[in-house]
């Protein structure tokens, strides 16, 4: 599925700004650009670890199931953001990813990505570092959400 990614396209992604042209080429070799129609589900909460994505455009939301309550969207991702970081750690999917607006994603095949990171620690470092930055941003945002900054609702 999708079309192969070019090194140029990789270079345009902010996330990979730290990569040299040869590194970009290596990454391009394991990546594909995939269009996704609105309504599609990329993965579901509880699925085994899968591929890593970068949103190229459109909008994808992460939602969680809370027992006894309707499913709830908790975060939307847009251009330039990383999706499915659990791939890097080999964990199960922690949320469901749904496409809400027609989107394009860059899909990085998990096993090859991990292999690449192992073989070329420079690439591995850049990717892990970017993933870590994203995590830090999201952690902060989650904290704010948890604080319920709008104040307790009364009724």
């Amino acid at each position, binding site marked *: 599925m999708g079309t192969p990614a070019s090194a140029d396209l990789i270079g345009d992604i902010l996330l990979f700004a730290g990569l040299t042209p040869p590194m970009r080429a290596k990454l391009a070799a394991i990546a594909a650009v995939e269009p996704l129609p609105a309504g599609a589900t990329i993965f579901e909460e509880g699925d085994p670890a899968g591929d890593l994505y970068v949103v190229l455009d459109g*909008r994808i*939301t*992460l*939602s969680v199931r809370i027992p006894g309550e*309707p*499913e*709830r*969207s*908790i*975060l*939307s991702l*847009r251009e330039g953001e990383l999706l499915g970081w659990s791939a890097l750690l080999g964990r199960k999917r922690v949320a469901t990813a*749904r496409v*809400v*607006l027609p989107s394009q994603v860059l899909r990085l095949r998990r096993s090859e990505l991990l292999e690449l990171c192992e073989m070329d620690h420079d690439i591995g470092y850049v990717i892990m570092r970017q993933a870590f930055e994203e995590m830090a*941003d999201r952690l*902060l*945002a989650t904290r*704010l*959400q948890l*604080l*319920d*900054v*709008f*104040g*307790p*609702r*009364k*009724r």
Partner: protein
Amino acid sequence: MQFLERAALDALFDALRAEGRAVLGPTVVDGAIRLAPIDGAQDLPAGWTDAQGPGHYRLRRGGDATFDGYVVGPDSLKQVFFPSKETLYRAERRADGKLGFSPVLPDPGASAVLGVRACDLAAARIQRAALEGGPYAEPRHRARREAALIVAVNCTRPGALCFCASTETGPRVTEGADLVLTERPDGFLVEAPTQAGRAVLARLDTRPAAADEVAWVDDAMREAAANMGREVDLDGLPEQLFGRLDHARWKIVAERCLACGNCTSVCPTCFCSTSEHPSSIDGDEASRVRLWDSCFTEEHAYIHGGGFRPRTEDRYRQWLTHKVGAWVAQFGTSGCVGCGRCIAWCPVGIDLTEEIAALRQGEGIAALPAPPAHACATDEDLVPRAATVTRVERESDDVVTLHVAVDEGLQGVLPGRFCQVSLPGIGEVPISISGGDGALLEHTIRAVGRATDALCALSPGDAVGIRGPYGRAWPLEALAGRPVVVVAGGIGLAPLRGALRSMIARPDEFPEVHLCYGARSPADVLYAKELLGWMEVPTMHLHLTVDHASPAWLGHVGVVTRLLDARSVPAGASAMICGPEIMMRFTVERLAQLGVPDERTWVTMERNMQCATGFCGRCQYGPYFVCKDGPVFSFDQIRFLFGEEGY
């Protein structure tokens, strides 16, 4: 200078009464020297001496001086000019359903206050700065102050807790008095610095003082200044205190402090107040009553959902950093006059001179910005105007927008400013102007408590009270010509709506406006219709996010700071922010990363408010009053305090 025989002191009372003045003076009441109505010299505490120490005040017999045996008791001119409880206005529901508000203003007869010390005259000057210094003047305070003739006394024998020499507010009377007495064994040396004082003096049988008597006064004052029981070093203190908000001493003093507020009650300069809204059983008549308050109470820093100063150390720090710190920036003078009352009347004997000395030992200096000067002082009687709700728009399940017609119209309706919106018997609350003009105001209100619940339940035709508008508007003139990023969280969109409307109406000055708005959920998005319309406006770029939603929601999900990136924050942009304080904190950080400098970042602050005019002290924020210096601040004004825990 004249000399008055001791035996002729009663003549002074006669002279004051001849002018129709009621006389207040020091007299022994329940074991303390209080300020109370007195009839003649026999009521003065002649022959009494006070022994004062930390947490200690005792009267005993000793000596035969009339004024010189004791210093200050718990009372000061504060009680006289600013009573501990007074009604500000009455409200009644008239037959036509409208509200009638009538001010309650004192009609103080001429009075005279006897035996006032230098420290208390300095304190009266300081209270006057707070209550009459601008931009508003409290007419009740002024009326009482102007009606009083002051007969002051030079202190020749300072007490164990006195330190007015180091605060430069005594022991010699240099301001605020009409007559000044200096006591000697045989009588009183009398000076009359004012016309009113000279008129009284003219009624007395005195002789000119001899040269050696005049010299004696100078010597006695010098000696008194050298004999202070305590001392304090105020030099550079504001900068030190604000640079040491984390000083270990705050915790240490908080272990002893009971947060009882005695210190603030006896302090002759403390002016904080709160208010109540008693009403008749049938609800047809109500009033607003002002009462002294203390920054040591939990309510002082309360806003719905919690308080800013939960711990005793927060409150003690608030008190001291204000009294001898921020006060200097606000009023050009320290709030401490060296009277020692807070030391004597503290049940656990906390000694502020000791605390100050300990806090001076440490590191840390903060530059204290001076708040904007308020050139003029307009009379403000704190009485609402009658107004009628003309329309109610439900925005979400706990927010409504009231359209309110104010009978006499209002001046200065600008986005960012706010009004005190009131319901008799229920309360008065600050609510931002979310739209409208002088004749028809829009207020968007979230039901969170007693007053807002009642306001949100109003229907067209219902009566409300409105006073204001108050505070500083968004500085649209300063923002023009650059891209503007507006960041709003929840009800925080209300004070920004008017500004957004103005910017949309002036596309030449505001060619690129980004609104980043975060709401709790899609159902909580305010002004939904208007937002839809704004999506069509070429100069306006709308970025909307909600904290969570159902999967059917196609918009952004996540906190508002996630909307801020190079797309929504163009190079060279200025920013306006309103929302919960914690949201503003993260927003400011994010904007700074994106290159928006502090001086082009504008925020609105929220603190408990009672008066909105600078009188009640509730909205203190470091050197600022949120009500009169804010609520809109540029971030560089408040950066040094913003986000400080317990402030």
